[in-house]
Structure formats: structure tokens, C-alpha cells
């Protein structure tokens, strides 16, 4: 997590946008701060940027190293938790036959599947396979884990990537508009809609979208990758992904948008904005050059940290739109305690969230010089 030190970061640097806003009091608190407008011959902006980049790289290296013990802990914790969870993996394995399988046969099956082993033995076996390049086999899907992932992950990346991109663009445009004129008509309308949408489960949104756009208007296909199970084509997939992508984006927009709006409103009240306004800088420039850049940092952070929300949204949207993605596999593998698949997906998600929040921090650190690089 990066921390914004409110202008007192240990390596403050000049930034054209915020420079003019810094009042005399702050400048004196940061004697080394270079300010173009002040015209000092302090180190050039380029030098400071270079130092900044070095710090950011340091942060990236430290965090990447940090990922190793975290994934180790998470995976060990997962195997231990699975062993002590109230779920019986035989329920998932046997399905409807759970009720008709004799206790003697359940014991045989447990033994064959290694369910009676202590968790660290299962974990150790899994680790050995993993480092031997074998991801293991998924009991739930009767397939190698690598195949389950390879067949499904691309579809989820496509759906979630497009959905998130769309959500971010919409959230930025509307959030800034609403935040800048907070309390105005647009703001009140947008906030109200957000609250309503946030209360709607994605599957209701999905079914409503299918009912309106696929069935009533007939503009778009209802679900799946292709019509009637024909071979998927690029154009066909594009048409089929439109509804799920939009629904996923809509389900993600509210919290993104409200976060943008909130930080825009906060930035608006800051001294540097008041200073800029008092010096007669036009509102449009204050918004573009002063408010928006400082508001983006917390927003980028939120996108990084709340990736799990996106995964949950994807689970529901994929189910309703019969989208053959990996999100449903997370639920299935967790329910069945299909450890090989569950471990891969959990660790994958952990790494994605950690890398996502690292990327967000890098972007924030590069965007906002006041942010420290946790070194």
C-alpha cells in the first residue's frame, strides 16, 4: 500500500501542475523543493524524475520478492483450511451418488484420492508436482488443470478486461463530471443511479439485459459464444460479448464512479485548488491540471485493490451468459475441494491482485510525486 504523505513525502519533487499551488509555508517546509516558477537553480526536473524512477523500481523489486512468501503462505493456508473445512470433498466427487455409495466404498475412494492424508502431505505432493512442471489434474472437470485453465482463462480475460476497461472509462468521465459540480443535477442523478445499480445483483441485470436486448428488441444474441453452438468466429464472439461486457461494466461502475467522485470532491477542497482559483486561473484549467491528476491516484489504487470484486462479478455474469470462462471453475473447485485446481486458481488470483495493486501503486507513484515508495 502506498501512502500519500500530504506534501511531506520524504522525497518531494517539483511537478508543474502542483507547483504554483504550493503556498509559501509549504515551500519553507521543503527547502529542497524545486519550483520552476520560483526560478531556483535546484537539481533539474529531469534529475528528480530519474531519482524517482529509481525509487519506483526499488519498490517493484521489493514487492515482487514479497510475492514469493505470500503465495507460499496462502497456498499452505489453503491446503490446511481445506482439510479442516466443513466440506466433505466426497460430496462433490460422488455428486448424486453420495447418498447411494456404501461407507466401505467411501473409505476406499477417500484412500485412493488421498483425502485421508494430512494436509501437509497433500501440500507437499502438490508442491513437488508443481516444481516438476505438473499442475495436477482437476477432479471436478476430469481434466488436467493446465487444460482447464487454457480452455477457460482467455475467455475470462477477454470478458473481464473489456468490462473493466469500459467501467473505468465510464466511471472516470461521469465521476469527474459529478465531482466537479458536486451537488448539481448531474451529480445527484449519477449518484442516485449508482446506489440503485449497486443494490442490483449482477444476475438480475444480466437477465434483464437478455430480456430487453436479445429477446424483445432482437439486437443481440442471448448468451454463449456463438449462435446455436456453431464454431465461434471473431465477429460472432464480438457480438456475443457485448451484452456480458456491458453488464459486467455496469456492475463495476458504481463503486468506481463513487470513488472518483469522492476524491474529486476532496481535491476540490484542498488549498492548492483554492490558491489556483484565487489567482484567477480558469475553472477548466484548474479542473484538468490540478483537480483531476491528484484525484486519479486514489482511484487507481482502488482499481488495483478491488480486483476481487471483478472476479465475483465475472462469476455471476459468466454463469448467466453461459460464458465458458474460468470464474465458474473457482466456485466449482472450491465447492468440491478440487485442490489442484483450487490451489492454482487461488494462487493465481492472489498473484493477480498483488501485481494489480503493485501496478496501481507504480502508476500512482509516477503520477503523484507526493506518494512515497514504501522504501
Amino acid at each position, binding site marked *: 500500500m502506498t501512502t500519500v504523505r500530504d506534501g511531506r513525502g520524504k522525497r518531494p519533487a517539483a511537478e508543474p501542475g502542483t507547483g504554483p499551488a504550493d503556498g509559501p509555508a509549504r515551500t519553507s517546509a521543503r527547502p529542497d523543493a524545486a519550483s520552476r516558477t520560483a526560478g531556483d537553480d535546484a537539481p533539474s526536473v529531469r534529475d528528480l524524475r530519474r531519482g524517482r524512477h529509481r525509487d519506483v523500481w526499488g519498490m517493484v523489486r521489493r514487492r515482487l520478492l514479497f510475492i514469493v512468501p505470500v503465495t507460499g503462505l496462502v497456498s499452505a493456508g489453503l491446503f490446511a483450511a481445506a482439510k479442516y473445512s*466443513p*466440506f*466433505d470433498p466426497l*460430496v462433490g*466427487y*460422488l*455428486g*448424486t*451418488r453420495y*447418498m*447411494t*455409495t*456404501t*461407507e*466401505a*466404498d*467411501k473409505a*476406499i*475412494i477417500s*484412500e*485412493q*484420492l488421498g483425502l485421508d492424508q494430512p494436509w501437509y502431505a497433500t501440500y507437499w505432493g502438490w508442491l513437488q508436482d508443481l516444481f516438476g512442471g505438473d499442475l495436477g*489434474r482437476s477432479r471436478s*472437470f*476430469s*481434466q488436467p488443470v493446465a487444460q482447464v485453465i487454457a*480452455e*477457460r482463462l482467455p475467455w475470462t480475460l477477454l470478458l473481464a478486461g473489456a468490462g473493466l476497461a469500459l467501467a473505468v472509462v465510464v466511471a472516470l468521465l461521469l465521476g469527474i463530471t459529478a465531482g466537479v459540480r458536486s451537488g448539481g443535477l448531474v451529480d445527484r442523478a449519477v449518484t442516485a443511479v449508482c446506489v440503485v445499480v449497486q443494490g442490483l*445483483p449482477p*444476475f*438480475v441485470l444480466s*437477465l*434483464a439485459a*437478455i*430480456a430487453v436486448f*436479445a*429477446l*424483445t428488441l*432482437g*439486437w443481440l*444474441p*442471448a*448468451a*454463449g*459464444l456463438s*449462435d*446455436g*453452438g*456453431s464454431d465461434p468466429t471473431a465477429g460472432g464472439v464480438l457480438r456475443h460479448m457485448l451484452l456480458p461486457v456491458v453488464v459486467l461494466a455496469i456492475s463495476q461502475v458504481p463503486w468506481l464512479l463513487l470513488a472518483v467522485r469522492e476524491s474529486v470532491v476532496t481535491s476540490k477542497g484542498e488549498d492548492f485548488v483554492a490558491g489556483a482559483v484565487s489567482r484567477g486561473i480558469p475553472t477548466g484549467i484548474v479542473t484538468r491540471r490540478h483537480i483531476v491528476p491528484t484525484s486519479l491516484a486514489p482511484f487507481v489504487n482502488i482499481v488495483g485493490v478491488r480486483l476481487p470484486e471483478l472476479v*465475483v462479478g465475472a462469476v*455471476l455474469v459468466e*454463469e448467466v*451468459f*453461459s*460464458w*465458458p470462462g474460468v470464474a*465458474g471453475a473457482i*466456485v466449482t473447485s*472450491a*465447492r468440491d475441494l478440487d485442490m489442484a485446481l483450487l490451489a492454482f486458481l487461488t494462487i493465481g488470483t492472489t498473484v493477480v491482485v498483488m501485481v494489480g495493486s503493485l501496478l496501481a501503486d507504480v502508476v500512482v507513484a509516477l503520477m503523484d510525486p507526493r506518494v512515497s515508495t514504501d522504501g
Partner: protein
Amino acid sequence: MAVTRITHLVRSVAHREGNIVVRARAAGPVLPTIALGGVLALVACTTPGGSADGEGAAGDAELVLADGYELGGYNPVAGFGAAGEAKMYDGLVRLTGGEGMPGFEPALAAELPTANDDATVWTVTIRPGVTFSDGTTFGPEDVVATYEAILDPASASEARSSFDMIDEVVETGDDTVEFRLAYPYAPLVTKMLIGIVPAEAVATPGLAAESTLNSEPVGTGPYTLVDLSPDRAVLEANEDYWDGAPEIKKLTLLYVPDDNTRAQRMVSGEIDGTNLPPLLANTFEGKDGMTVTAQTSADWRGLSLPTNNPVAGDPAVRMALNLAADRQSMIDDVLGGHGRVAATPYPEVYGEAYEPDAVFEHDPARAEEILTDAGWVEGADGIRVKDGQRAQIALMYNSVDTVRRDLAQAFASDALAVGVEVDLEALSWDRIDPRINTDATLLGGGDEPFDPDTQSYDALSSVFVQPDVGSVYANASDYQNATVDAALEVGRRSLDQAERDAAYREVQDAYVDDPGYVYLVFLDHTYVSKDAGWNMSGPVLEPHAHGVTWGPWWSLQSWTRD
């Protein structure tokens, strides 16, 4: 009670991930059905053809069906197609359809199997000249290998328990195989529906769930799998099929997990058929070019009343609850009319083996009389009490099954009307396990409905009262009735059909005088299909499992068009 509540809370947290999906389904029948109903009305007058723009599925000799069940897992050794519904495989025998109880006809067997006098050794002659989809020739060694693989502990086969009467399967000649049994077993032919795989595919012992057969099935069946992805399985007709090449040349199965989405894709005209829950299927009733099919099944729902429970074990309470249950209104309200009243595990389609007089009338007044006569008198709060024991029963049901939940609720209100309090608890199976012998459970059955023995022996025989015999769910009530036991054994051992039928009628007579469960309903499985002018072979009695391998499509390999 407080403890139960906390357990529920903990569970609901623990199940959060699973519940996301469950909730989506659970809400299905209520809100979206209404929404869909409205949409259907709209669509009916605007876009009857819908937005399907692929090759028109109707008109060609191909079908596109949407299934709510995950695709893949096509290994018979792991229990796939145990009732003979697998399109890529053939069993030694196969079902003949039509109204009533299905019969059996030889498939990979050349003729129906024959038994020795005490039904412990069964001989099967193998059909000559049949080849697997990989080109190899089918022979007796494949039969032996398939059954041995199912029984091999190393396979960890889900279907193992179902075959536990089989001691060994031996090749006794170039074209004969002998099944040697651990005990006399008259309905062995029901265990010969499962698909046969090539011996080479199971040559190495190993987990059935990890076999390549799951995604690359090799069988002798009317179809072969040509493409499998997470959302789609494409099957093509086997042009060399020993029973003649199917007229439907291509069958595409789509995995569409959400019930409402399947309904919507059906409305859009993009698919030729799908399985839907009864209330959703009813929204298609009367729609042009669509047929709603309700297939009879032996898929029962009912509740156990454990003997050890001081309330549920009381014969008067057991009888009274059977009379108090308003089964017809459960069918009308919960199942949208698609079901049949159950008094015993034997449905009416069993014909000669069914006893028409063995039924329970819905008679709450008589129920109250029985309870009062037995000393259960109404307390101040309307709940009956006997010797300080309150007439209160906990009824557990599997939390993911909304039909069980709705039936349990309906039953609880019927029981309350005669002064018996039924407290519902939604639990996962592993939570139900340890309490199965002390509290009532909403159960389902009918996994193997093609013989009265497979349908009822586990539920009613007192053999399973012993703690280590069978599954904990076998005879969950710990029901003991000497007449029932004796007749069940006759049914299991006798090779004389008339004697068997009489034995099962005797079971039903004895059971309704001394019930140990409350059997509620048999579900009808509902399907919607697009009309395309095929001559179908008629319905078949369906087991517990359903999906588009059943329904009107169970015999699509034999469909013809003029």
C-alpha cells in the same frame, strides 16, 4: 435453537462462494420467471423466429440442445451413463421405451442374459462384428475389463457401490462372458446398461476421474464425440453403427448452467430443446412450434422418520403424518402440476408390481384422531404432547435444492395443521450425515428405477439398520418390518416374474399399514423442444438424473423422418 442458528451463520459464511451461484438459481423461479413470462408474451407477437442466424438447426438432420449439466466426464468407469443414456457407448443391454415400465433388449449382448437357478451366475453372449470408434473390434475381454475397472479400488469409481453384487466377470469363450455374483440377484440386467469401453483404455489401473476417456470417449455407440470445449460438445453420427446409422447426423450439446438463460435461449429460437424446471417449462405451454414434455420418472421425494427419534419413531406419528400430507397440493404448487402422488417408493408405472390400494388418502381429521388415540394431546400452544414429549421434529434438507426446500416447507405446514411441529434446517450433506439416524431428512431417490429391487431395497430393508452396512442414507429411517424384509428378499432372488410382482405388492400392503417414511411425490421431468417433424420412439421412465440425454431425446439415434 441458538446453537443451530449460529451453525447456520457459520455455514452461510463458509458457503459464501458457493451460495453466489445457488442464490442465482434460488431466486430463479420467483422473480425472473415473472419477468420472463412478460417477455414471452412480448416476443410471441414480435419475433417468433428470434435472432438465431446460424445454420437453421431445424430442417437439417442436426439438433442443438442446451443442458444445465457440465459437459465432459464421459467415462463409464466413473459412472457416466450408468442407465444406458450415453450416446457414445452401448451397454450389454438397452432400454425399450413406451408407456409403463421399460423393458430390456440386447445391445452389445447378442441376446438377453440368462441366469443359473439361484441367480448367482449370469451368462452373456456377445454380439459379433461390432467395432469401437477407434477401429478396434469389440469382444468379451472388453466387457470383462470394463466391469473389472469399475470394481477395481484403484479406479475410485463413483459407481462402485451399485455393482457390489458382482464378484467377478470372466471370459468363458470367444463370445461369452460370465458374471459371478456374491449373492443371488434377479435384476442383474439393470447393471448391464452401463457403457462398455475398450480393454486397452482401462489396461492401466488408475483413477477413473483421470482417464482420457472423460474427454476422448471411445465406445461402440451411435455417436462419436468430435469436439469438446467448456461450453460445447459436438457429436457426430457413427455411420458404421451396428444398429444402423442414425438419421440425425450431428448433435451439439451446449452447457448453459442458468435455468433462466436456457429458457431465454429457447425463446430466441437458437436451440432445439432444453431441460427446464417445471414452472419455467410451463411458460412455454401453448407456444407455436414448441412442445412441453413432462416425462414420468421414478424420481421420488420423501422424508425419513428415524426409529430412534422419540417423536418420528412413534408408529402413530408416522401414520398421522402420512395422512396429514397434502401431496396433490404439493404437486400443484411446488411442481407446477408435473408430478405424481407417492405413498411408497413404487410408482404406478410399475404395472403388475404396483399395488393400487397401497395409498394414503389426505385425511387430516383421521390423522388427528390417530394422534389423540395414541396419547398425543394438544398442548396450550397447539402442539401435541405425550408424556412430556413435545411433538416436534427437526427436518433437514440439502440447502442447494430448492424443490426439497419447498416440499419441506409444504410438509411442515401440513404437519402443523395436525399439531406436529416440524423445524426445517437447510444443511449440506456432510452436516446431515451424522444426524441421519436421529432427525428427519428430506430425501430423494430413484437413481436406478428400472426394477423394483434397485428402486426400493436400500430404502426399506432392515439389513441397513446395522451401522456399517451400506450407505448411511440406506434405510435412513432404520425401518424394520419382517413382512417387508421377507418379500424384498423374494423379489431380489426370484427369477419368476409373477412371484416377484406379488412380492412387491406384498411389500406395499405391509408398508402402508406400518409406514416408516413419508413418501411425498414422484417428479415429472420437464423439457421444452422445438417441433421438427421427427418420428420419435415415445417416452421412457426416467431415473433421478435428467438432462438432455433424457427427455424426448433419450432415443434420438432411432428417430426417423418421412
